[in-house]
């Protein structure tokens, strides 16, 4: 690594742009080593999968044509005629799912190790926003092949948006580009998926990464309390980065396995006049919300059940995002580790509802 810092290229750049911060990062960034070090890698894996998304997404863009009469046909062309088009589509679809999965793992690992606490509140908030945007990526991308399942799932999904109080109906109209899911919806979802979301996501991602580099890796409480001579560190470059890279390679290997052995169906072209096919389910990361909404009674007090559910999840999401700013004054609560228990309940709820949704 030192040879790179001594290289002519680096010196040339350094003399013009003062690369001290980068030099400092390369030479001095350390990663603590302890029993929870494994969780430090989760963010990197999520980032790696995002990079795959960008790369495969750009390749798909070269052939994809949004439109009621061209979307399905162009995806069919990609998977049947374009050389390795099927592989790129499979990688894009599987990588999207893995990215959301690792984003969840990353979020909960940060939560349970309390890495979101001061001074990393904004890193947490930006990370949560990235997860929400990632799910929005998934929702908007699901419709793009314009097949039967995607069409009806989007219908159900946008109907749920309609249950948001006061602005729901308008929001649904804006999303659908009309009363129903049509070619107009497809155009909008394509715009959202390929332009709006990437722009916002990239900005927040840059902010998130800058924060991580600026503040370094969070150290858990027990690690902080260790005497200095007992604290173990490895350098970020190359030690941690190489380990990170090895994990990326393993994840990539798993991704290829999924893409080859569990290929995504093209399905049948969406037909608005056809009856809804059996087994319409949202993508797995929406399942816990979908299943909860299904279980709610038609009315809770004076509010419609679905509206109540949507309000609940919106409120719960906001509380979750603002968790670093919640201060528990009572010592009794702190002792009982209320935050950790809440986290366990949330994970149990999400996992339980997801399994229930698939078993039903």
């Amino acid at each position, binding site marked *: 690594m030192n040879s790179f810092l001594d290289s002519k290229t680096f010196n040339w750049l350094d003399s013009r742009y003062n690369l001290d911060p980068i030099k400092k990062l390369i030479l001095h960034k350390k990663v603590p080593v302890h029993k929870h070090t494994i969780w430090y890698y989760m963010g990197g894996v999520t980032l790696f999968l995002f990079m795959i998304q960008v790369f495969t997404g750009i390749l798909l863009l070269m052939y994809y044509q949004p439109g009621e009469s061209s979307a399905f046909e162009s*995806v*069919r062309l990609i*998977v*049947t*005629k374009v050389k390795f088009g*099927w*592989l790129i589509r499979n990688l894009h679809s599987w990588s999207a799912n893995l990215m959301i999965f690792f984003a969840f793992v990353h979020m909960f690992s940060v939560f349970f190790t309390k890495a979101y606490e001061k001074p990393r509140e904004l890193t947490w908030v930006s990370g949560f926003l990235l997860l929400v945007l990632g799910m929005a990526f998934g929702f908007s991308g699901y419709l793009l092949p314009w097949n039967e399942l995607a069409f009806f799932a989007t219908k159900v999904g946008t109907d749920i948006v309609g249950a948001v109080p006061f602005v729901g109906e308008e929001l649904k109209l804006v999303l659908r580009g009309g009363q129903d899911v049509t070619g107009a919806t497809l155009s909008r979802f394509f715009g959202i998926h390929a332009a709006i979301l990437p722009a916002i996501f990239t900005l927040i991602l840059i902010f998130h990464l800058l924060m991580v580099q600026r503040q370094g890796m969070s150290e858990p409480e027990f690690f902080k309390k260790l005497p200095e001579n007992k604290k173990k560190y490895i350098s970020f470059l*190359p*030690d941690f980065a*190489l*380990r990170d*890279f*090895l994990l990326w*390679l*393993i994840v*990539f*290997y798993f991704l*290829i*396995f999924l893409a*080859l*052995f569990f*290929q*995504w*169906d*093209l*399905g*049948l072209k969406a037909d608005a006049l056809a009856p809804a096919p059996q087994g319409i389910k949202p993508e797995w990361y929406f399942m816990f919300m979908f299943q909860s909404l299904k279980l709610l009674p038609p009315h809770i007090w004076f509010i419609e059940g679905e509206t109540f559910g949507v309000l609940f999840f919106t409120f719960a999401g906001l509380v979750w995002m603002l968790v670093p700013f919640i201060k528990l004054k009572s010592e009794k609560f702190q002792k009982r580790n209320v935050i950790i228990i809440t986290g366990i309940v949330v994970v149990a709820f999400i996992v339980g509802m997801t399994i229930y949704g698939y078993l039903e």
Partner: protein
Amino acid sequence: MKQKKIFQFIIAACFIIFNTSAAQNFDDLKEDDNCVSCHSDMEIMPEGFLPDNIHMQKGLSCSGCHGGDPATDDMEISMSEDNGFIGVPDRADIPGMCGKCHSNIEFMRTFRPQIQTDQVSQYFTSMHGIKLKEGDENVAECASCHTAHSILPAKDPRSTIYPVNIPETCNKCHGDQELMSNYNIEATQYKEYSKSVHGIALLENKDAGAPACNDCHGNHGAMPPEITSISHVCGTCHVNNMNLFESSDMAKGFSQLDYHACEQCHGYHNIQEPGDFMIGDNEESVCTDCHFEDDEGMQVAVSIKNILTDFVSVYDTAEAKLHTVQVKGMNDLEIEYLLKEARQKLIESRTAIHSFDPAKVKEISKAGVELTQKAIKDADSEMDEYYTRREGFIFASVALLVFGIAIFLRIRLISKDKG
């Protein structure tokens, strides 16, 4: 005579031109036409009057049929015999009254150059017209089907003669058991027709191209088809079936036995969707109506049935494979094209049944089976390719394993160096 006709035409044309400008709008007409203004003020407009009926649209108001002078508001003068007022016409006079304009080609062609003007003459060849001439006033005349005051063109979905509405229009009389008993006719035609393949297409699926009553019985010259003409009636649409049947030995046999061609197997008002079940020695087969076990005809029926069953079986397999190929996102274009051709051959094979010649059916179905088998082969090869893709995993495994081991060794080396 010719001069009189020209004069009539000029008068009628002037009348139309004058009224077209004045009666574009019914409200305008209320002001200009005293028939309309008085009758609507007194709320005694005829029952079912439609302000935008075709005559009103073209500027023909009440006096066009009933006579009289709409220009004066004096009832005595406007509705006087001197002014040609005829009041409510007798039913027997209605065809002649409509025919004054509708049989006049010089006049009618001003509206549409290809317009028909033989309705009245055709009508008097129909059973309705013959009976009317005989003095039977219970039979249908023009207004019975077209209505008197809400006449609309056949292409208007509100019209009583719009294809989808025709069965209901005929049924107004032909569904009246009491009326029909005078003529020894059943009143169940509509009920039977509405459950038939044609009725379902027209009445339930609103397919205006499906045959209504008039497509088989004629419009103005409506008559029950004679035995000899039945195959021609059906053959108007089912051309190939008719040609095959007429050149078959079966047609000769039918003719000798006075059998009703198509109707003998398919029925008439209650024609059901045909299927392969109709042929062979099974219970639902129509062949068993006349043929018995092991007679030559039954052997032919069973032989044709077997050819079709084999074809359908291989075709169904191919369709299922095509579906899998499509859902999996493999290349289905060629398979789909082959199966479209095979489907056509299946239809042709089924049509060829009407030749009652197993060799002919076999010849067509053989080509279809070959196409289907090629489609199956292509579908299998697509699915093979689908699973062959997994072989790529071996190469990926080797490459990534080598790369992974290299990184792992590097990590170990660095760790060792750092002690």
